[in-house]
């Protein structure tokens, strides 16, 4: 099942896909651009993000890293201020010289998880969606890196369009992903290249913190993160999950 949350005609609705765009719970059929898309998780809980979780991305950044693929997962947390829905707009700071997209598989927890083993982990997943977790590299400092000024900016974590229930995604490590900037493919990867799989991440995280329904895990991005400019239309696509559009301003 695929669900979205949209605002239309002064109210928030749940919507499902329709050949002409989407259909609201009241039967109304609308085109994609007739509604305001909200993040598809109604009440996001803790937002957990992964850095350097793709082998190819680690290789790409190897010159500036003191890190190998054998290390503990690089985890950081974000706040709800960062979220913005499909077809949303994200501000590019005027002084930034290097702001890049990050196409990521987002995992939404559906059942509390504490000390869950990887073999049982996927039963705790409600569903999946697409995330574009922008970073402004100019603001990187070597203190709790990457810090919130880089990764938790207002509206710089796009999420959506659809929350795809876990039963439609039998293997989250079998998904191709790609990013198009103004229609041109700039980033390509595959979730099989994650260093820590979705199941392994749930085992790791639930080993020290209780994951709760509505918590979101952003699982990292593959290589190919390029600088973008104001006005660029950035589409992050994950096979079987959806295509998330965001425009920088």
């Amino acid at each position, binding site marked *: 099942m695929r669900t979205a949350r949209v605002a239309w005609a002064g109210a928030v609705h749940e919507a499902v896909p329709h050949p002409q765009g989407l259909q609201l719970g009241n039967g109304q059929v609308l085109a994609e651009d007739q509604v305001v898309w909200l993040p598809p998780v109604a009440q996001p809980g803790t937002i957990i993000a992964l850095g350097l979780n793709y082998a190819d991305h680690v290789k790409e950044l190897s010159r500036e890293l003191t890190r190998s693929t054998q290390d503990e997962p690089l985890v950081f947390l974000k706040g709800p201020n960062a979220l913005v829905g499909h077809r949303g707009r994200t501000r590019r700071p005027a002084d930034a010289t290097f702001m890049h997209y990050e196409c990521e598989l987002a995992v939404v927890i559906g059942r509390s998880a504490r000390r869950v083993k990887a073999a049982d982990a996927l039963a705790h997943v409600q569903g999946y969606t697409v995330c574009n977790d922008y970073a402004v590299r100019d603001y990187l400092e070597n203190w709790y890196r990457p810090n919130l*000024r880089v990764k*938790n900016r207002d509206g710089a974590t796009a999420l959506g369009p659809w929350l795809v229930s876990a039963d439609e995604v039998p293997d989250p490590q079998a998904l191709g992903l790609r990013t198009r900037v103004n229609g041109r493919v700039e980033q390509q990867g595959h979730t099989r290249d994650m260093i820590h799989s979705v199941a392994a991440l749930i085992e790791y995280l639930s080993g020290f913190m209780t994951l709760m329904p509505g918590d979101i895990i952003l699982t990292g991005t593959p290589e190919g993160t390029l600088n973008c400019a104001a006005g660029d239309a950035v589409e992050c696509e994950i096979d079987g999950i959806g295509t998330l559009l965001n425009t920088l301003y």
Partner: protein
Amino acid sequence: MQTLEFDFAPWRLSGQVVGVLLNHRPALAALGDAVNQPPHKAPPRAPVLYVKPRNTQVADGATVAVPADAPALEVGAALGLVIGRSATAVPEAQALAHVAGLVVVADLCVPHDSFYRPSVRQRARDGFCPLGPRVVPLAGLEGRIDALRVQVRVDGVPVHDTTTGDRIRPAAKLIADVTEFMTLSPGDVLLLGVSHGAPRVGAGHVVAVDIEGVGTLQFRLEAES
């Protein structure tokens, strides 16, 4: 897991708690030249922030589990600024107008020496953010917000006596610098940052954190089962 009970808006908490590392001048000074050495290579410029997620938040009187892999925990006594009015890119001079009240927070962590990577495993364990017992209105405390006495007692014995002062970013400046890039919403709690020399505690201890004019927060530590 215990839930938090607070009064209604603007004192109702949102569940978003944000802490700041090394905001106490003596804490940064204690690192000496290490701030200029790898991996840091330079002192922090922007506030170094971290999130205390909802699984960490417990109420006054809570029992907090000390993880089996961490024989001692650090108790960071922190003043929590409870946001009352949405704050985006707020100028320093107007910052305190966005604060509804104050709350006592015990920012617990597994002690760690490296501040290079975000220390989620050290800071985000279940129960690692006791806060309460209540949010007190800011009215009457505005002028003293950066000079309140802060004390920590373990089993009734004073172990840390400090203040909310001597911050690199006092409350209003911190709100201004944080909201420059992230909105703080009503019920969000921004911590002013813990003082240098935070005491360490272990299973069996009863800890009280007292902030002048704000209240006394108490919790008990027990070994993880």
